[in-house]
């Protein structure tokens, strides 16, 4: 046969079929603080501290943000949110509750550790740790297995401008009904 044996759609069709994602899984370890990391005896104290410092430094930049303290506390618990102002007005972000580092091919990736937040809404009725993109990582600290993308948490940046792309299409769009930028 010279064609695909099956074709399917997940998102485009009105009745999506659910598939299990086959993304590679890797080991990750979650620690509440440096002391728990040192007690785990997998990293030296210096590595534990370097990993913590990196996560802490990333925390304010990447944490999920809310415009209302109430919404933030609904997700992360009463008294577990802090106010920040990074040029976009007062926003609320959860406190960093733990940090995680991935083990890629068995080696600890402690210089790319990331902050975690304890969410009460991402795991059904009980709580668990989520990354800065809100993606569940593990219910408790210690060793776990996560999809690789969960450990590559999205980073945030301060956007200064939009609409810097797309102008050629409108400039050339008068032709042929402006159907497509493709070919």
């Amino acid at each position, binding site marked *: *046969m*010279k*064609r*695909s*044996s099956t*074709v*399917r*759609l*997940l*998102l*485009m*069709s*009105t*009745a999506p079929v659910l*598939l299990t*994602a*086959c*993304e*590679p899984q890797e080991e990750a370890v979650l620690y509440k603080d440096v002391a728990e990391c040192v007690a785990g005896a997998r990293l030296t104290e210096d590595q534990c501290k370097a990993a913590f410092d990196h996560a802490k430094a990333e925390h304010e930049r990447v944490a999920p943000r809310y415009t209302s303290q109430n919404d933030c506390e609904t997700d992360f618990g009463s008294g577990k949110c802090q106010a920040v102002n990074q040029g976009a007005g007062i926003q609320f972000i959860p406190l960093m509750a733990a940090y995680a580092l991935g083990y890629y091919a068995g080696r600890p990736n402690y210089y790319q550790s990331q902050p975690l937040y304890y969410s009460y809404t991402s795991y059904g009725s009980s709580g668990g740790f989520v990354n800065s*993109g809100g993606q569940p990582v593990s219910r408790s600290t210690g060793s776990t297995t996560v999809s*690789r*993308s969960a450990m*590559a948490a*999205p*980073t*945030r*940046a*301060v*956007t*200064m*401008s*939009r*609409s*810097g*792309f*797309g*102008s*050629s*299409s409108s*400039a*050339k769009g*008068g*032709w*042929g*009904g*402006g*159907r*497509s*930028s*493709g*070919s």
Partner: protein
Amino acid sequence: MRRIAIAERADWRDTATRLGFRFHTIEGEPYWDESAYYAFSLRQIEDDLEDPTAELHQMAMDLVGDILRSESLMDQLAVPVAYRDWIAESWRRGEPHLYGRMDLAYAGDGPAKLFELNYDTPTSLYEAAFFQWVWLEQQKERGLLPDAADQYNLIQDLLVETFATIAPDLPKPLYFSAVRESVEDQGTVAYLRDCAEQAGIATRGIAIEDIGLSTDSRFTDLDDYVIEALFKLYPLEFLFAERFGPALPRSGIRLIEPPWKTLLSNKGILPLLWQKHPGHPNLLEAHFETQTTPALAPGWVRKPLYSREGANVTLILPDGSQHVASGPYDDSPWIRQAVHPLPQFDGNYAVIGSWVVADRPAGIGIREDSTLITRDTSRFVPHVILD
């Protein structure tokens, strides 16, 4: 290769709606056309289309290194100087490409002739990979086509497989982007995004116009998350020329198609292929236009280096009759290509879009137009293999 009339599926518009095909009719004009189909023999598909596609693709890929080593070739292709290092770096790092479509003139016998490579922003993908497949399956179920009817169409299998292959190296999520108002482009990226999800890749969508630029030169989505990997159904040369373009090389963004693909979607690749493989049976003679090139003679076509959907193409047939498609792409240098009129079937000029996914020939889609120059008003007609 024959064109055969067949009854339309009475419910095909409902099926299209259910399956997310929103651009089967564009501005009241039919685009998806199943009132006929093309029938090929397996030999025609394998010997005359699949094998030459693989060979032409390899010949084109072999040119990338040649071009990157030569400033004068980059000048000839009008590659913007500010992006040359970035383009070269994307090739040196082996940034993977996903797909391309080469347009071939083929009448059922003799060698297929390469018209051009659409290697940056090819469309008509969903129709070829998915809806054409569904059409065949349903027409067989309903007894209008024999059970033995097959199709040259591994496109979706190979797209999903390629996404899975490149996934481990790709920052997630992978963003999919096209011009907001283009139903056709939005449909094409929705389909590609679906294929990526099937391969287990987390995806997001954003309109090209909504992409933001941060204080530290990163591209951002509407929630200020950094876009680290972007599939863009938007010409690389447009990105280069627009306001955010200069931020691309230092943004760290991974693009699909990657920057080096701009070299192969450039019509200048046609004269370069001819220079390296003069007389190749699947190539048409082609040259760069220079200041001393005489006026267009009968038997030649004139195309801009950068153009889409047949725009700004001028063609003079051997009998002296001239055919012109107007358009906006009049701001780049030109190439000349020997005329090879498209074959006509029942009054329709048919061009074969032969798909390449990663580096493998993957299938075909056929578009018909009422004129010699295939434009964005063409109709997509399905095909079968039937010996």
